């Protein structure tokens, strides 16, 4: 499977931040043209001074809506297991213990409770993607910016409604990915037609028992919990709000559907 492999080393941005943050002089001495989050203290690294350096909060909070949707998912008999962000957050990646580089609030030496939190809507941190196992190797993105709580100051009701719903679409054998806006489609037939046009393939019709039989291409998607699902199983609304990316698998590569499922 072709594709760009992007691996940007974790090390350099962290060291850079460490370097800058250790300078306790006034904020105006920082180079204003540098776009990194300058005023976040890396607490395990440094002795924080109490003068003139605000502790920017980067905790992300699960909003009531997020809570609700999680509850709804479990109520509907959704058997997917929630991936516990805690478990992922401190894996070693690239030989670096990420706990050391975790940005957190407060004075150094304070034992922080690890909270289970998700940033609301489209503004998801890039960190989580790094920690999870990525099947698709084009997908590694460096944690360039951690999301700050409540910034920009846009109410969550606005964020949810206008969240970008572009998802990446890959097809086995295609040289590059495409992106589509799920919101421009109202139902599965529209989506599948668009995919067929985009990749010039025949996907065929969905059948509840056997999926996409006979066409040779199987549209799958990765949902919020990181599981790969067959496109078409769940109602459209549920699909469009939980789909994170699409992958059209070649029929021969697609694992056969177990008849017991």
């Amino acid at each position: 499977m072709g594709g760009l492999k992007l691996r940007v080393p974790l090390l350099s941005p962290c060291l850079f931040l460490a370097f800058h943050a250790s300078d306790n002089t006034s904020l105006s001495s920082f180079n204003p043209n540098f776009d990194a989050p300058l005023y976040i203290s890396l607490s395990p690294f440094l002795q924080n001074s109490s003068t003139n350096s605000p502790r920017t909060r980067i905790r992300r909070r699960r909003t009531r809506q997020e809570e609700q949707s999680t509850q709804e998912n479990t109520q509907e008999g959704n058997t997917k297991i929630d991936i516990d962000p805690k478990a992922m957050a401190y894996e070693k990646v690239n030989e670096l213990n990420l706990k050391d580089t975790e940005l957190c609030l407060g004075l150094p030496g304070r034992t922080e409770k690890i909270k289970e939190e998700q940033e609301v809507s489209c503004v998801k941190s890039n960190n989580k993607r790094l920690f999870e196992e990525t099947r698709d190797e084009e997908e590694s993105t460096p944690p360039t910016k951690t999301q700050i709580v409540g910034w920009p100051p846009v109410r969550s009701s606005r964020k949810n409604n206008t969240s970008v719903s572009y998802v990446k679409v890959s097809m086995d054998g295609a040289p590059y990915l495409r992106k589509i806006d799920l919101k421009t489609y109202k139902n599965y037939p529209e989506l599948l037609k668009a995919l067929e046009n985009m990749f010039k393939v025949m996907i065929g019709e969905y059948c509840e028992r056997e999926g996409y039989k006979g066409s040779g291409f199987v549209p799958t998607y990765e949902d919020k919990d990181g599981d790969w699902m067959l496109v078409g199983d769940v109602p459209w609304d549920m699909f469009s709000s939980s789909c994170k990316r699409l992958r059209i698998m070649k029929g021969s590569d697609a694992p056969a559907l177990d008849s017991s499922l």
Partner: protein
Amino acid sequence: MTEEDSSAKMSEDVERYLKLNPPCSSSSSSSAVAFANKSGTFKSSSPPCPEHVLENVLESVLQFLTSRCDRNAVSLVCKSWYRVEAQTRFEVFIGNCYSLSPARLTHRFKGLRSIVLKGKPRFADFNLMPPNWGAQFAPWVVATAKAYPWLEKVHLKRMFVTDDDLALLADSFPGFKELTLVCCEGFGTSGIAVVANKCRQLKVLDLVESEVTDDEVDWISCFPEGESPLESLSFDCVESPINFNALEGLVVRSPFLKKLRTNRFVSLEELHRLMVRAPQLTSLGTGSFSPDNAPQGEQLPDYAAAFLACKSIVCLSGFREFRPEYLLAISPVCANLTSLNFSYANISPHMLNPIIRNCHNIRVFWALDSIRDEGLQAVAATCKELRELRIFPFDPREDSEGPVSGVGLQAISEGCRKLESILYFCQRMTNEAVTAMSENCPQLTVFRLCIMGRHRPDHVTGKPMDDGFGAIVKNCKKLTRLAVSGLLTDEAFSYIGEYGKLIRTLSVAFAGNSDKALRYVLEGCPKLQKLEIRDSPFGDAGLRSGMHRYCNMRFVWLSSCVLSLGGCRDVAQALPNVVVEVFGSDGDDDDDTVTGDYVETLYLYRSLDGPRKDAPKFVTIL
């Protein structure tokens, strides 16, 4: 008329009366008696004391006084006037629900018909306040249920309202007419159902930007049968489906309905049906603005005809999931529109152009930055009557593309000279554009610029944004509300302190170098009422510099600054009439979370009744 204007002079009626009947002159007693005889308000045979007569007359006069600033001034004249004013006040505005207890309210005012109550500070909207902090409506509804059986109107903002509260409200006020809940939470469709069902005189039910839990109750069906007095029904923030047939039935039997804001579960076909039923609407929230089904050819309803028939529409909003191919259907009403809200619609300049070209009378325009600088130029070219502009980010992240910039801002300033209020989100800005706006739009009272990249300087010159904001405070002499952003040094704040003499609300984030900045503002802005600051290097010295002001302010919020517990304690001890709350970012800690000296969030406010009794464990009141 601004509050400042009205408080600067007493109402003419009162002044005139005072000239004719000075309280101390002897001649007044005979004229007072004569007057009393005419009105027949005294019962005893001996002439009533002038004071009582004066009160009666004052009552008649004060009924004409509606401005709360005037009324506050009247109440300070003397005890007698205080009493009479209290008896004749029907509307009360409480800007901070913790500034007094419900008991104090009911003790002073005996005949209230309308209550406006605000709870949490604005930064709570951005997840900076842990849940369950407070601002519960419950104690207020309990107290007012007993004291004001004739209460007609309740308007709440950022309050925690439960279904039980709504049920009590519905049960307690037989003449209840208007319920408006803005940015509230804690209730669901079941609470709304009770209100709909029991408040038989309900004219206004407006749910604005509130979180409404879906209890799966068909609340629309709960409105009673028969003709409805409804004039305004807004439920665009309700994120659950509604029974459309019931809604249609309700609209049919609401001949006085003028404002209808549907939610995104109302399709274009359904909207069409509603519009046909209610051509008298003046304000319409269009719901999803998207058809349920793919168009079937000949069966397509004539949407443009429906808009044409609704000749009275002056305000349009909604477009929650809009389909661009239907946007032109609103064309027939464009020329009459005074308010257009596209802020939930991803509209490109190309889509905007044919619409905005006809909107000559627009006064209020909200949109996403998807309209780009190009769209703003189109607005500037046509909307000469624009008073209020709000541009929200389609992609609210720090490093997203940034389709609007100083170019758009400057274009607006040149085209829309009557502009009074602006909220503008962008990725980068120039001092030049901001200065241009300050010069072109002298009527500005609200200037809120959010450069989403923190600490971003002028992207052309590389300098801080001090000069731009300085020009705003200097040139916009009517400015009462200011929100700053971008790279700002203490100098920007010195300008604010020097020129911002009318500023009542100031929002600061990621700005300033030192305590001097905070001092400039607290010493320089005499009208400052609401100060909200986050992530700025302000500490105890800065906080101390405002001691003389806090009793005269509604609140001060400082989060992620460099305050210490000791510094906050000093304020609390020096100012007994000010409540000083400190708390952390997480509400999950069950015990006292103030570990160490660092204060994550300081929220202080004046209060007549001391610290509140309902503070959760994570809040420490110093």
